[in-house]
């Protein structure tokens, strides 16, 4: 069975400083992994996806994530936070079927 753990429910950073949102997955095989962002009262927007082509994945808005099989991690990073990055972020794994398994989310606050 698949599961996704987002290690921090809330992360707060100052504008212009790096962002790190942590995600670990549990699977007996390499899953497809995604990060989605959700702004208030809006639907989920795909940031990036990992599908085994490359372990370092670049997404939109300057975000990146690195797949580390040895650590079963898929952490999301950005070198410099912007005020518009404040939102809820979800790490998602797709298993052998077509179910998407969502983490519980990390709320990112950016301090001016």
């Amino acid at each position, binding site marked *: 069975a698949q599961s996704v753990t987002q290690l921090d429910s809330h992360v707060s950073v100052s504008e212009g400083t790096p962002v790190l949102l942590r995600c670990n997955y549990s699977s007996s095989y390499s899953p*497809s992994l995604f990060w989605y962002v959700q702004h208030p*009262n809006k*639907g*989920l927007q*795909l940031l990036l996806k990992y599908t085994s082509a490359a372990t370092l994945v670049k997404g939109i808005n300057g975000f990146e994530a690195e797949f580390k099989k040895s650590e079963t991690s898929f952490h999301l990073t950005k070198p410099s936070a912007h005020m518009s990055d404040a939102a809820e972020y979800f790490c998602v794994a797709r298993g052998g079927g*077509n*179910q*998407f398994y*969502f983490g519980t989310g990390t709320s990112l606050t950016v301090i001016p």
Partner: protein
Amino acid sequence: GAGVSQTPSNKVTEKGKYVELRCDPISGHTALYWYRQSLGQGPEFLIYFQGTGAADDSGLPNDRFFAVRPEGSVSTLKIQRTERGDSAVYLCASSLGAQQPQHFGDGTRLSIL
């Protein structure tokens, strides 16, 4: 282009009533998904359609919940005898195929009084 459209955006109804939530996927997307998101939680899978058929309905919580997609495009999620615990945001997503990223609508916020 047009994204996934969900109507209504908000629905308030009384306990025991019947509700229908509509999802209009991106044109050409064969896969369609329904999720339920409770406050402070990540979306929880309900059901997945490939074309007109429900390929996986294992996430539906009980037999009060039912979904259809008769022509392989628009889908309707139906909830009978609503309960207060059904209050949540119901999200719909579609994708080009089963292995492709999902594109989400803005959701329907359902409140059961």
